[in-house]
């Protein structure tokens, strides 16, 4: 198994606060990897650093064999890393379909000049984009809402739309930041099903989630972050048995 994403000694500081403190972690191609930890432990920061939204202050990040620390988020996205956000980030005034179409950006190439002159290949490309976007929507079951504005669809669907947009880019690695947040149990079950199918399509998934049941059920390996440091890494069973993890999650208060 090859390593798709590798982090080594990654450190990120915000002012006086050290959000990530020498984090080392690797994601293997083809696995579903979980990242858990208390709120504020640095999980989202790690995703931001890995996807280029924030620049790490130190360490090494390699994605698909290329060092990516210091590259911009769009450059990293073009390498095949797609992601969703904890606080959903959609193009709210665009339609559901158009959101997914923007996801196809990395797979197409028509620029401003081509758009104005519109040679035949541009029309073909546009059709391709539309098809792929529809397919991505169909994958998460949103195709019926294609013409709705992203703003006006329910919260759970907005989360799925973010996943569809990421999927439309045909990524190698998908980072999902709390995909089940705000979903009811039925929606969460459907989401788990979607993630399993993603893996079947050959997409590697790296996710942050608070819903323990979901994490334990679908992840092959889990890394636990606390106070910006990795405190445990291993299979769900190993992590659950780790005394340090229990301590961190319970915040030092005896839980009876």
């Amino acid at each position, binding site marked *: 198994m090859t390593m798709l994403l590798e982090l080594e000694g990654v450190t990120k500081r915000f*002012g*006086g*606060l050290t959000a990530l403190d020498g984090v080392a972690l690797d994601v293997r191609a083809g696995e579903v990897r979980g990242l*858990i930890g*208390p*709120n*504020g*432990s640095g999980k989202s920061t790690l995703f931001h650093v890995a996807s280029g939204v924030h620049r790490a202050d130190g360490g090494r990040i390699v994605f698909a064999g290329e060092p990516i620390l210091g590259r911009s988020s769009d450059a990293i996205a073009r390498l095949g890393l797609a992601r969703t956000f*904890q606080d959903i980030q959609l193009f709210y005034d665009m339609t559901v379909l158009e959101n997914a179409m923007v996801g196809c950006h990395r797979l197409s190439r028509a620029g401003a000049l081509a758009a104005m002159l519109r040679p035949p290949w541009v029309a073909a490309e546009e059709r391709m984009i539309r098809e792929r976007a529809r397919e991505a929507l169909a994958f998460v079951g949103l195709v019926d809402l294609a013409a709705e504005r992203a*703003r*006006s669809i*329910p*919260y*759970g669907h*907005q989360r799925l739309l973010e996943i569809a947009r990421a999927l439309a880019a045909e990524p190698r690695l998908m980072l999902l930041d*709390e995909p*089940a*947040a*705000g*979903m*009811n*149990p039925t*929606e969460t079950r459907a989401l788990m099903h979607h993630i399993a199918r993603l893996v079947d399509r050959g997409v590697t998934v790296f996710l942050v989630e*608070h*819903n*323990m*049941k979901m994490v334990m059920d679908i992840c092959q390996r889990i890394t636990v972050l*606390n*106070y910006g440091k990795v405190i445990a890494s291993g299979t769900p069973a190993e992590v*659950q048995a780790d005394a340090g*993890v*229990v*301590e*961190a*999650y*319970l*915040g*030092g*208060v*005896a*839980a*009876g």
Partner: protein
Amino acid sequence: MLTITDLSVAYGPIEVLKGVSLEVAEGAIVALIGGNGAGKTTTLNTISGLLRPVRGEIRFAGARVDGTPPERIVAAGIAQVPEGRKVFRNLTVHECLLMGGLVRRDRAGVAADVERMYGLFPRLRERHRQLAGTLSGGEQQMLAFGRALVARPRLLLLDEPSMGLAPKIVADIARLIADIRRDGMTILLVEQNAAMALALADRGYVLEAGRIVLEADAKSLLEDERVKRAYLGL
């Protein structure tokens, strides 16, 4: 003391709370737990008057307060320690504490209460001229507590007080909450750290996707299998 009945709140077309009802008895700590996005913060912000409900009502000490502007709510005796602390970064520690007493008429009383907070949190006294943004996370949380307490509330709303804090400091915060309660404060505590919240609370509610799915006294919630699996990671 606080009674919420069938509360629904929406951001634009999207309903975030779908008929929430809960009750906080005088002198009690009530925990509201749930995952991110479940609607916990929305509940607190609606109580504080920052959001207007679409349906339902909120009664505080017998009077309806839903739809009342936030400055009246805080004057009526409900103060909030918001999620992520939200200290005023470019104000000094002292000014932040004074902000807590903004709606109070008695300047002398505010000054005395600020002094009391310095007694309670000696770190804040040391740094009273420093900008709040330069404090550490734990110190900011103390400041946020102090700021809310200067308002002299009867009901304190706490939004994720443990968030992003080291275990040792979380323990300090838990002790602080217990102390405040011992002085007779009523507290509505929103937490993702369910273990900590339920250990402190008398009663607990579980919020999922805008609905209350469980409610019971805290002890029995801690024993509940669903809660254990979903929120305690056990």
